[in-house]
């Protein structure tokens, strides 16, 4: 994994017109693969730059953590796509590019909401739009972030406690999924082009990318008519599957193992229980989960997460830590994989997937408008 390693997407030019997290995430992953990603953003910077976190909470247009994460490895052109001059510069850049990445709803003096006009004007550029609900259908004009999308996608109804309101996760899952599919769709169509198939437009809806991840609740409805509700950190028909307390925190406890009964009996120092139906029969544990908890909890409360997980994994039980961000930042396994090694030696979140020959590489985030002179000045429209 040296700096000299070839870049898979070398020579591919992407124009990204800033339009929220999904577009930024798709552009980031393409940049990690070696594409030249030129991000067009408003002269004052876009919400990702302004959204922090900042060192010492002092706003810094080029120094935000969100900006570092989503825009690493990109170029920045600052201009107003709503002005005539800015739109003209943007059009020249789009015409020079393999791919335009934005949302059809982005306000601009460009016909981003008119696929045919875009195709006519930019016949050689693939236009990939990622929006909350897509370009068609009854919700096309709806808006929403992950919290709203995940409610409609079936996540929220099954997340939380049965006697409380549904709850969103603390991360922007739906918007990341929209960006993930922006990446995968762009790569699919670049590969097709390499075989002579030029496509012009792809319409991605973050709502659909979130809804498609739910086969857990749909499959039990399709097959049995069951309507799952939120029920702590558990799955429906398997136990133990939960986040359980231990002496110094929490452990994640799941049922899969080649021989669960033996492994669990040995884990909790109760070998006499190995032949008990409670350990032997998966369904027995679902039905008598309180009995199972009564067996398990005293042992968990006498042990720390580290020893529980180590012993469990030696016994081929897929128990795991419930780490927080500080634990993960200090994690030996991730360190051994070089996951947090940033482009200039500072820490950064590594790429989501490893490639042995053309590794994805995080890059440094651009200063606002750093590429204006080089890429946009000739048209006079840049800020």
């Amino acid at each position, binding site marked *: 994994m040296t700096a000299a390693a070839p870049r898979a997407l070398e020579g591919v030019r992407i124009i990204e017109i800033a339009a929220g997290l999904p577009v930024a995430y798709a552009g980031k992953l393409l940049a990690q693969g070696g594409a030249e990603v030129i991000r067009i953003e408003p002269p004052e910077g876009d919400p990702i730059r302004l959204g922090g976190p900042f060192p010492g909470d002092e706003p810094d247009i080029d120094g935000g953590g969100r900006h570092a994460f989503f825009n690493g490895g990109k170029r920045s052109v600052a201009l107003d796509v709503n002005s005539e001059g800015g739109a003209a510069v943007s059009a020249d850049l789009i015409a020079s590019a393999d791919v335009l990445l934005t949302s059809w709803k982005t306000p601009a003096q460009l016909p981003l909401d008119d696929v045919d006009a875009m195709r006519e004007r930019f016949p050689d550029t693939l236009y990939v739009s990622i929006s909350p609900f897509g370009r068609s259908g009854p919700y096309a004009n709806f808006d929403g972030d992950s919290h709203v999308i995940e409610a409609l996608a079936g996540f929220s109804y099954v997340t939380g406690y049965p006697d409380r309101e549904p709850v969103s996760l603390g991360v922007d899952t739906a918007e990341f999924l929209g960006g993930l599919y922006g990446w995968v769709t762009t790569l699919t169509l670049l590969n097709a082009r390499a075989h002579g198939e030029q496509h012009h437009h792809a319409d991605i809806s973050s709502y659909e990318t979130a809804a498609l991840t739910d086969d857990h609740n749909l499959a039990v409805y399709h097959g049995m008519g069951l309507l799952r509700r939120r029920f702590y950190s558990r799955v429906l028909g398997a136990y133990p599957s939960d986040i359980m307390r231990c002496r110094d925190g929490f452990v994640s406890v799941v049922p899969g193992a080649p021989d669960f009964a033996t492994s669990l009996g040995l884990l909790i120092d109760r070998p006499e229980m190995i032949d008990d139906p409670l350990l032997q029969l998966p369904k027995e544990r679902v039905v008598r989960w309180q009995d199972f908890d009564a067996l398990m909890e005293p042992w968990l409360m006498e042990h720390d997460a580290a020893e529980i997980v180590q012993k469990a994994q030696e016994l081929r039980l897929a128990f795991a830590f419930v780490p927080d961000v500080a634990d993960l930042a200090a994690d030996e396994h*991730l360190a051994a994989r070089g996951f947090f090694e940033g482009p200039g030696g500072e820490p950064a979140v590594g790429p989501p997937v490893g490639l042995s020959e053309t590794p994805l590489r995080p890059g440094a985030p651009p200063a606002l408008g750093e590429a204006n002179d080089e890429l946009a000045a000739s048209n006079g429209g840049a800020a």
Partner: protein
Amino acid sequence: MKPFEGLRVIDLSQVWAGPVAARVLADLGADVIKVERPTVPDRIRTAYIAQNDTTGNYWERAPYYTVRNVSKRGLALDLGSDEGIAILHGLLEDADVLIESYTPRVLENFGLSWNDLKDRYPRLIMMSLCGYGQTGPRRNSPAFGMGMEPASGIASVSGYEGEPPLKSGNTWVDPFAGIHGLGGLLTALYHRERSGRGQQIDVSMQEGLLQLLGPHFHDYWMNDRLHPGSGNRREGLVRGIYPTAGEDAWIAISVRDDDEWAALARTTGNEAWLDDARLATMAGRHEHHDEIDAAISEWTATRDKFAAMEELQAAGAPAGAVLNARELMQNEHLLTRGLWDAQPVRGFATVPVQRYFPAHVDGEGYGARGPAPHIGEHTDEVLRELLGYDDAKIAELRDAGVIDGEPEMLTPPEARAALIQPIDVFLASGSILEVDEQHLERMAAVVARIEADAG
């Protein structure tokens, strides 16, 4: 022409994350051959059997299995035998992609690791997916999606304020990891077009999931700050999930700027907020969130969740009804957009199967191309077509148990009994809302709509 016509994929993966990546390639035109040991098939075949009926060949009637494996061909192959390994090598001669989801030690033991294969098949792209990746001290730790959500720190930032970390009730982490792997694979495929060389794709489910915490890591590095679960609330936003009319009915609202705030205030009859100096900024609104929530709840409580959503959205305040699985299946927007294809869970019914490549490309979509295969359904066809085997050779392999066999662990009466779900217990505990006695009729209506739309 579909984008990956002509591409051949050997899919050794099981359960969800790997199979879903392979399914996308199949939907996009690739010839994907799903390889299962006839005696120990994909374990997802035993999950939640249709109609809770575990008689007969119940392992062919799991909707979970169907959804992840449509569009593929099925090959039964005992990789525990030398002949089985030889057949796999025969297939790899002409394969473009190999996908597997074991911990690294497994294929190392079979002599099928990347190091064993890379020189023999220089154009091969091998995607290996497991919990923690192919290197590092935790490489062989077993993992499932349901455990990876907490193991990746997502649970630590989720949950009600002051309560323990929380995992979602949906196993989105599997497709999240599998589709990230697919992106790596497609990047490698693009590189191979130019270099002629394949490579290994190392998918750590954990590292895919850590992307979601990107801004959290930077806040920790910059400010030493962590963000434990804060329910539905998020700094800089007005956000909540509010009760609506009906049993266990809710609406999610998330307001990000002053325009959306004004729309929320006006729509819910709280214009006074717009003149309230305490609520002039997002910080001020956050400080008085309880008071705001009480007023919003008062407005939502008497309204239908869909009507409230339409009203708020029309005014410019982002809102979404909280849907259960039935409502998701019936959702008009998703039906209009063609997210589902009608495919059989054979021996049960035709079901709506979601697309895992949902993009509309020049007005067209890429969905399921055919049913999920029975164990070894295409064994003879694959061996004849791809390896040139004749009937005598195939019969010999069948007799030797290389390409045929009973899934013995799945057939004893106690194994069948264990897989019957205790639905009465789910009902009593509150983990399900109800058993919908009309679900087959409702599903058939949705399937009829999908088929009519597909022409």
